[in-house]
Structures are given as C-alpha cells and as structure tokens.
C-alpha cells in the first residue's frame, strides 16, 4: 500500500482546498498510531458541559449531555479524537511512556493534519470533537503555541463548532493559555499525583506550583467571563464547559481519604467541573513504582469515581465517607451503601414525605429517581412497584425505605443483617471479587485489593 500517495490525497482533501505545508514522512497513518498510543492513558474523554447549536455557516454543534461515539475494547468511551500534538517530550516523568529517556517511535503532527483528521472524522460521525494534549517540545510556551495554531485554524478557517478539549501546558505563557481558552470548550491541567511529594519524586520537571498556576488562571478567567456574559450576552465565551483534571491512582502510597480530600479541595477552591482518576499502569517498568505484573487498581478507581459522584451530585462530604481511622473504601459495598450501613439512625426513610436531599441518601435511589419521586407523589401515593418503574433499585433500597409506613417485606434494621442480605445477592458484589472467590480475602479495603478486569467508567448517563 502506497501510503505516501494516499497521504497526499488526504491532505489535499476535497473538503477545503488548501495546500499542505508538511513533509510526508512519517505518514499520517503512522503519526496517528504513535500519537494515539501516546495519548491513550489520559482519561478525560467526555464531550459534555456545553450546549451550542450550529450557526449554519460551518460544521458542528455541541450537546451538554455529551455524546459517546463508540466504546473501545477496554469498554471506555470514545468521544473525542484523543491525540497528542507531539510525543517528542523533553520531560522525564517516570510514570509516563513519553518520558524522554524511553526508546520509542516519536512523531509530531502539523496543525493542518490535525484539522483535516478532525473534520473528516467529524463529518463521518466518528467523533464529537478534538482532545488535544501534547508532550513538551522545546518549551511549554512553544508547545502551547503549536496547539493554539491548530485549534485557531480549526475554529476560524474550518469554522468547526464541535467540541474541543485542550490541555493547558504547565509553565506556558499565560497569554497563550488565555487565547486558547477563548477557542476551547474545556481545558484541563493534569494534577498527575495527589501530593506534591509524590510529584517531586516521579515528575522532577513538574511542580505543584506550575500546575496550580494555570489552573487558577483558568478559574479566574471563567469567573470574569461569567460576569462579562451577564453584561453582554454575545461576549466571547471562555472555557464554557469548565475545567477538569486527573490524578494517577496507585503509583504512590496515598490512601483514599487523602485522594478524596484533594478532589474535594479542587471542587471547592478551584471550581473544577470534574476530577478524573486513572488507575496506574507501569508502562516503563520503573523499579521505584508498583510492578508491571500487578494489574491496575481498577476496583479502587471505580470506588473513587462512585465517591466523586457522591460529592458532586449527592451533597456528601469526604468526612462523611472516610476518616483518618477508616481511610479507604470498602471493596464489597459502594460508598453510599457503606455510609448508610454506618448511619442506620437516619433510616428507614418514608417515600411519601421525605425531602429530596434525604431521598438522595438512600442506597438504590439516584438523583433522577429522587426527582421523579418528589414530583410523582403529588399525583398519587407511591407503592413499591411504582418505585421500580420510576427507576429505583429496590434490591438495595428496600432495607432503607417505607411506603405509607410499610416496608416491602419485614426486615431488620441491623447493620450485619442488611450487609449479609446485600452480599447474598451475588450481582451486588463487584465482578473482580466474585471471580477471585471473595471468601479467601482477609483484607477488606480497596487499596489492599487488586484484581483483574475493569469496572465501568461512565461518562454519560441515560434516562
């Protein structure tokens, strides 16, 4: 197959006839493979948070619920064209495969190539937009400049109105970060590791300060922009889908309590939209890090996401879920069930009268079903079959609720009894534990436990 010739076709594509300013080696195909492979460990692939109709003069729109276009063999959602601009990185972070000391194939896209790929994939409904990150080529500012060129071209020349997520490169010129912010929908700066000590050890070229500076800048930009938009509706929008970050889980010895506290701090003090957690995989066989043979801590990652949801949508605080004495999540039970079992004094909850926030605390009742319950009970009295239709997971909720003063069937409001009953139903036990035969385990928290396989990382919810 003559890729060079095909490549020529690609770049001088019919969509817009602009001349390519690229050398043709390696081919776009090779670059795409290298730079996708280099980007795959980045977790954030959501396309949510902004609603924008097309303006009729270009291509694209955005839906705030986010749209996943396919799911890879690992079950993770593919929503955006997730690539690095370059993997020719000058940094030597020991957890990262693009570490400058690694002997791997290197490549760099041109802005034109990125635009063509994005537009052509987007037209075919393969993707929802672009996720552009990068290794550090020459300097952070130089790298950010290249990223800016690419998305500027995409937004103005191609009039692309789909979703764009851009990484802010720590240490880059703030002026460039601001310019990018007016073109992108979401920006993120990776926190990489939960504590600054861990960061110093594993990523000597990065520091907490250089990471938090752009994060603060983007936060302030968003706040200012909101005020501006209040005065003048048509003011250009700055990072309208908000800012996110990610942490690597399991490379360093922090416990869940520390990690969740950091996340809570980020939500409260930096106004982040999302914090992502990424189960550590030792790609570099670095002897100072957990071994390559040990599987990634996926159950732990799953529990952290569940708790993260509780913080953002269920009005929980980290102190309610974990403490210094109990610093890690339970492997058998999700954080909400675990909390409920330790706080039986709040239960049972009467479906007919409990307020929205109380309903949210019941295991098996989610934010959507709680809202539906509050509305539906105005029409008529709700009974258990109605709750099932509304979407309540009765096999979890039944121990904690009453309808018109009645429980679904007689149960004891007792921690051991409920816990045993819940775990009797094997579908309520995480797959990892089921497959390993959980009776043999002696340690019950998610840090001491590692298992094969994965757990869902959902980035969109269905009604």
């Amino acid at each position: 197959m003559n890729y060079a010739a095909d490549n020529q076709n690609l770049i001088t594509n019919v969509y817009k006839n602009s001349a390519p300013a690229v050398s043709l080696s390696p081919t776009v195909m090779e670059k795409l493979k290298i730079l996708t492979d280099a980007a795959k460990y980045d977790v954030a692939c959501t396309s949510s948070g902004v609603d924008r109709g097309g303006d009729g003069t270009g291509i694209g729109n955005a839906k705030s619920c986010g749209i996943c276009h396919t799911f890879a063999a690992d079950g993770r959602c593919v929503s955006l064209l997730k690539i690095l601009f370059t993997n020719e990185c000058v940094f030597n972070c020991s957890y990262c495969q693009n570490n400058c000391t690694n002997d791997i194939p290197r490549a760099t896209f041109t802005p034109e190539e990125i635009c063509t790929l994005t537009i052509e994939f987007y037209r075919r409904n393969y993707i929802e937009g672009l996720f552009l990150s990068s290794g550090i080529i020459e300097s952070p500012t130089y790298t950010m400049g290249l990223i800016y060129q690419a998305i500027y071209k995409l937004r103005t020349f191609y009039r692309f109105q789909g979703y764009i997520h851009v990484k802010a490169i720590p240490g880059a010129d703030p002026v460039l970060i601001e310019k990018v912010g007016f073109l992108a929908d979401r920006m993120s700066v990776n926190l990489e590791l939960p504590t600054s000590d861990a960061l110093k050890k594993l990523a000597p070229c990065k520091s907490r300060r250089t990471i938090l500076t752009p994060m603060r800048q983007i936060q302030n930009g968003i706040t200012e922009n909101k005020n501006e938009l209040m005065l003048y509706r048509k003011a250009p929008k700055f990072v309208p889908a908000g800012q996110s970050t990610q942490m690597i889980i399991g490379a360093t010895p922090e416990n869940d309590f520390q990690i969740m506290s950091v996340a809570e701090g980020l939500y409260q003090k930096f106004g982040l939209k999302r914090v992502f957690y990424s189960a550590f995989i030792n790609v570099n066989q670095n002897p100072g890090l957990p071994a390559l043979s040990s599987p990634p801590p996926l159950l732990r990652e799953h529990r952290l996401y569940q708790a993260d949801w509780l913080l953002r949508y269920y009005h929980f605080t980290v102190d309610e879920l974990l403490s210094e004495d109990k610093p890690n999540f339970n492997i058998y039970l999700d954080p909400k069930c675990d909390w409920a079992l330790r706080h039986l004094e709040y239960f049972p909850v009467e479906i007919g009268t409990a307020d929205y926030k109380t309903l949210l605390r019941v295991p098996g009742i989610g934010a959507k079903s709680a809202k539906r319950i509050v509305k539906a009970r105005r029409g008529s009295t709700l009974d258990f079959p109605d709750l099932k239709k509304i979407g309540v997971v009765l096999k979890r909720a039944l121990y904690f609720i009453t309808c018109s003063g009645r429980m679904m069937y007689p149960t004891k409001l007792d921690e051991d009894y409920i816990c045993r009953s819940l775990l009797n139903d094997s579908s309520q036990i995480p797959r990892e534990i089921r497959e390993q035969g959980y009776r043999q385990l002696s340690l019950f928290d998610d840090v001491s436990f590692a298992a094969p396989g994965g757990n869902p990382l959902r980035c969109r919810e269905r009604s």
Partner: protein
Amino acid sequence: MYVFQCENSLDGILTGVYDAWDSRLGHKNIQLSSDSCGEILLFHEYITVIPDLEKSQKVSRTLICRLGISFFEVICKCAMADGNCRKLTMDKANAVYQAIVMALALPEGAKVLEYLAEPCISCIFELCRQTNNEAHYMIEFLRFAELENGVLFSMIHPKNNVLPIVAEHFTDRFPLENFLLYDATHQIAAVHKASKHYMIVDAKDLNLDIINRYSQEEQEYRKLWKTFFETIAIEERINSKLQSHNIPKRYWRDTVELKSKLTRH
C-alpha cells in the same frame, strides 16, 4: 366497551383520539388500540378509525394550545416508539388517549406527565424513554460514508421510528453538507440538501447500489479511524463485557470499527 382501532402512526392515533372523543360514549367505556392483530374480546364493539389529517391536526392544535408544546412532543415520541415491549402494561394508543383525557380534566394539565404512579402515565414514560434512548444511540453510533458525489450516506436499523429526531440533530450539525439518512427498518429516508431543512421521504425503491460507490478518500479515512480505534484501547484494561454493555451488539453492524468484530453465524 368500545374499542377504536387506529393505525399505528401519530396521525392514526390522534385521529383515534378525535373520533373517540367525538363519539360521546363516555371515556370510561372507550379504549383505543393501535394493534390491528390483537385478540378479539367478547362484549367489545370494535370501531375502525381511518386516519384523517384534518382531525389529527385539530387534536395537535388543541394539545399544543391547552397543554403546551412539550406535552405534545412527549405524545409524538410515544407514537414513534415501537410499542411491542414486555414492560408495557397498556396499548400505546390507549395510554395516549387516557393521558390526554386526564390532562385536559386538570387545571395544570401538562403536570400529569409527572404522576408516574398512574398506569397510563408510566406507560407513556416508558415509551418516551424508549424513543429517546434509541434516538440517542443512533446519534452516537450511526456512521456516514462519503459517496462519489460528495453526499454523506448512512444506513440505520432502529426499532423505533426515530428518524425525525436523528435528522433534526444532523441538520443542525452539518448545515453545509448534503446527506441521506436511510432507515432500513421502516424504509424511509431523511434527505438533507446543504443550507435547507431536511425532508422525510418514502424510500421503498431506494437504489442501494449508490451506497457502494464511495469517494476516493472514504476507504482511507475508514482505515485511519480503525487504526485510532484499535490503538486507543488499553490492553491491561480489556473488558469486552463492559464494551458490549455500553454499545449493544445490535448497533455494531452499522459502525465502521466494530462491524468486522461481529461473530458470524
């Protein structure tokens, strides 16, 4: 009991609602049915409803004006739903009729949609959810191919009649493209001409040869996409169960990247 048998379409059901109302037989004595081959019951009188655009539009206008546009949208989405689902306890047309009767009797009629403990409302909720979910799946998983003449073509196989919702989405998204969305289940197509609004047309005689005449670049982009798709997965996390939970197998055949992975029988 009188049973009004109507055609399984929005116009059919709304005409049924009109005729049932107009018959003055008393709401309690009336049922609607959109299922023409259902069993015939004793002591039931069956009345066939002939779809009538004028009657259906009268009902639409009343619904929009008295109950609001979002109530009407919900009714439309119910009518689009397939309706053959074990979860449902009621016929689709009957649920629509009962809900309308209930809503028009209340001062804040549109609120009835929230009263999920009512059998007809929970049925409407379920139908609406079916339509919405499948429309969302289509928007996520359908793929366009560029034909020789630059037109984007896509074939879908939805259970529910979701083409209008999907076409609306892509009209906003690709205003400058010419595209053709073909619903092979219902044999209808949405045709969009650049800068115009889309049209739904009968596609029984669609010439399927055109879909094999791709543009020069089409195969190249498919290869690039497959490469991206294969590369993005993390080997240490492979989980095919989770994958087919998130993208149900019945949608694989219309994608580029998963089609070849379907095991053939």
